[in-house]
């Protein structure tokens, strides 16, 4: 018998896939999109691309997340903010 999937784990996987797809669409190599990769320092996203990520997350998952912060947010951090914002429609 298959164990039921934890809804949080299912959501986290969906968010991770969406973030990966969005970054790849921006021209980032999929192999570079690791959990610890920083948007600015490692993936070299500028402010326009960061806004693109925010808008795509809104369009795909109907979440409003602010990615601009004093620190250079990681891919894992983006996923955490999406989950905290309450993912819908994934």
């Amino acid at each position, binding site marked *: 018998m298959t164990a039921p999937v934890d809804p949080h784990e299912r959501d986290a996987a969906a968010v991770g896939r969406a973030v990966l797809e969005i970054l790849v669409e921006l021209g980032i190599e999929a192999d570079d999109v690791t959990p610890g990769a920083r948007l600015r320092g490692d993936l070299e996203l500028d*402010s*326009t691309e960061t*806004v*693109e990520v*925010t*808008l795509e997350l*809104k*369009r795909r998952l109907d979440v*409003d997340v*602010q990615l*601009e*912060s*004093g620190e250079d947010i990681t891919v894992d951090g983006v996923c955490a903010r999406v989950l905290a914002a309450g993912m819908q429609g994934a």
Partner: protein
Amino acid sequence: MSPAGSCVVGLGIDIVEVSRIRRMVARHDTATLRLVFTEGEQLRAGDSADPPTHLSVCFGAKESVGKALGTGLAAFRWHEVDSDVHADGLGVDLSGAAADVAIRRRVHRWVAHWRRLGGHVLVSAVALGPTRAI
């Protein structure tokens, strides 16, 4: 030189590639774009002769205001800076957390300008505060 009775609290400059804003606007509906652009900005851009350039100026103004306040966009949301773009200038109006930051920095007036540079727009915003007593 700053206007009489004022001193410069901060200065922000930004350059925006118009084609990227054009792509951004084409990909998203107006409701989604409200995360970045105010309703007024979108309406005024729609009435303008060149909406992508108009919104690029708005985008650059938000960045410039964040830089002039010394916080970047970390302290407030994009849509809390509303820009009224004219051919020869630019008015900015802050709300929410952006207005709170400006009050703390004692900003009482903004002087902003923009100009087109090929496929880009260059935007500057100067935050003015009261003259310091000597």
